[in-house]
């Protein structure tokens, strides 16, 4: 895929250019932490998972085929890694315990999430994030990954199909079901311009 500069870097790394790999990490490392955050929600663990993903990329560089876009290949590795993490009993147990305690983490008004102008907005944002977290935990694995990639990472249907190694038509179906579930879960919330939840 000659038009993909990341693929060119990956090919350079395959030929022994370690700096090309480091450039890929600098470009996508932070985004991977954010992606992993949608699965584990624990900042330190999300960072560790993102590091794992790049170590996997480093180890399995020889298997990379430039027919796949680097970004979708990276997300495929990351999604599989995060889902494996969720399948591990110990983490699942902690997650369920957190959900039983009410899901949303207490709001720290001293650290405003990005974009929040006031502590109140930050609190609403955090509470909404908690509701989305609970929604994600309930979705089946494929729906969850498709939903995260589309709604939270901004990938196109075609890119998601590449990540999930499925058809665009299947992605359409997965996203529709997940969006219907989101509409039900988020119905009590007012539109973002209102900035307040009705619950």
């Amino acid at each position, binding site marked *: 895929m000659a038009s993909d500069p990341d693929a060119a870097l990956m090919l350079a790394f395959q030929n022994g250019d370690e700096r090309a790999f480091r450039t890929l990490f600098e470009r996508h490392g932070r985004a991977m932490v954010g992606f992993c955050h949608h699965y584990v929600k624990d900042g330190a663990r999300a960072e560790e998972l993102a*590091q794992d993903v790049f170590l996997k990329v480093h180890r399995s560089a020889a298997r990379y085929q430039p027919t796949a876009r680097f970004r979708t290949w990276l997300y495929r590795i990351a999604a599989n890694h995060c889902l494996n993490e969720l399948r591990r009993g110990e983490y699942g147990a902690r997650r369920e315990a957190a959900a039983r305690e009410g899901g949303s983490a207490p709001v720290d008004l001293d650290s405003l999430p990005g974009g929040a102008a006031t502590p109140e907005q930050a609190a609403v944002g955090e509470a909404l994030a908690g509701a*989305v977290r609970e929604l994600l935990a309930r979705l089946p694995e494929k729906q969850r990954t498709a939903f995260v990639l589309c709604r939270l990472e901004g990938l196109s249907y075609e890119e998601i199909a590449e990540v999930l190694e499925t058809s665009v038509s299947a992605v359409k179906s997965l996203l529709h079901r997940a969006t219907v579930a989101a509409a039900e879960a988020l119905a009590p919330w007012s539109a973002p311009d209102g900035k307040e939840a009705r619950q």
Partner: protein
Amino acid sequence: MTRHLDQELTALLDGALPPARAREVEQHLAGCASCRAERDRLAHAVQLLAALPPPPAPSPDFSRGFYARLDAEPTARAGVLELLRRARWRNLVPIAGGALTLALVVGALASYRAEQARLARGLDLYQDYELVAGLDAVQDPEDVLVVGHLDELPAGARP
């Protein structure tokens, strides 16, 4: 009419429909209050999700921690060994097990034959008859009979 538009409504909101299909869906929406209500419900969720705060930024140690882990990775040659250790051990275990079993069988056979040879060297003693008769290698009863009467043969005719 809502049912057959379900998936199309989400794809329409995401701008993922081909233009011709998008026009058809828009036309349908213009005349179908039920589908419009469903579209608005889905659009509300999509809008809320787009307004979510971004995940927190990685800690300052993220990159440094990664490079430290990368530097601790095995070198290329050690990496191959590591790969063998990690990826092939499931294959190596049955292969090694099979080789060990084969070696034990061959060893046992060799030992068995050596014992037979030792016994055969002393066949001129009658007390060896019972041992020889018990050997699986002596399959024919006539062989056992011959062995049992070896001491009756003239000395020069014995094996």
